[in-house]
């Protein structure tokens, strides 16, 4: 019962911040700088989501995440489909983990 209540409270505090902007943005007409800011948010978020998280995927081996991330960047730069970008980087990480004896 206690876990049930915690879960429901969690869902509430997670949903409300997702929901509020629907009504905020509906009423608000933004100045130019505001809309430039919000349009830049996805790329800023991507930067913060990728780094430094990517180098921490293997504790004590930042090079594994770095190599995986770099190989993803190279594959994406070669205009490969995102699924191949993902599979390629997984292959690199599996190889490096075996090579370095991480498990």
């Amino acid at each position, binding site marked *: 019962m206690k876990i049930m209540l915690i879960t429901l409270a*969690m869902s509430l505090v997670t949903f409300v911040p*997702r929901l509020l902007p629907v009504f905020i943005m*509906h009423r608000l007409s933004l100045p130019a700088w505001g809309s430039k800011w919000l*349009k830049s948010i996805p*790329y800023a978020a991507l930067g*913060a989501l990728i*780094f430094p998280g990517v180098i921490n995927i293997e504790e004590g081996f930042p090079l594994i995440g770095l190599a995986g*991330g770099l190989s993803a960047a190279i594959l994406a730069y070669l205009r490969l489909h995102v699924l191949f970008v993902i599979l390629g980087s997984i292959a690199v990480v599996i190889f490096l983990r075996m090579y370095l004896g991480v498990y």
Partner: protein
Amino acid sequence: MHKDNDALKDFKAGIVKAFPIMIGYLPIAISFGIIAMQTNLHLYQALLMSVTVFAGASQFMAVNMIYLGASGAEIVFAALVLNFRHFIMSMSLMNRLKSIPVRWKAFLSFGITDETFSVASADKDIAENTSHFFVLGLFAGSYFSWVLGTLVGGLLFMAIPKGISESMSIALYSMFIALLVPAVRKQWRFGIIAAASGLFNFVLSRWLTGGWGIVFSTIIGGSLGIFLMVEEKV
């Protein structure tokens, strides 16, 4: 009749766009299911959490804190802090999806995660006037994978070969990178914004926990765009 066909087509296209997210979510959700079971939650409790919260990091943190005997208030507050970044992301996305009716946006907002937000905002094939059925497909596919993975993990209970599941931790990062690279190829400014934001987060992560670091880095990094971005011609 014609309109219904369009709706279905958009919905399917959204699910196809969700494939990379689904692949990334599945192993994480499976591990969540397994860990939740290992920390003595019932399968239905793990499932309920995935169904009602749908925010990975905070769910892992919650089961960990439950296991450590933290109070309910602490756990809920941690979830609020960790997930507050979705507020900023939702502001950006809702500003972009102007053509979608408000009641649809209210419903769809439940599906905003780091990954669904990133694809919905940064994928080069997704136009600003995209339909709500497309977004529904994208979010529903991701949600389905998350809930299904939790169920599978709970049923597996014992670990999948550890080496494989851990190598897949790169998957979501690769997807983020695959979204960022084409955007940077088109607009170098996006690269500067992303690099600055990543560096901010690197510095902030020494003092702040994951959720707040991402919130502040995104706000600061995004504000660089005010000076860098050129006004779009209509």
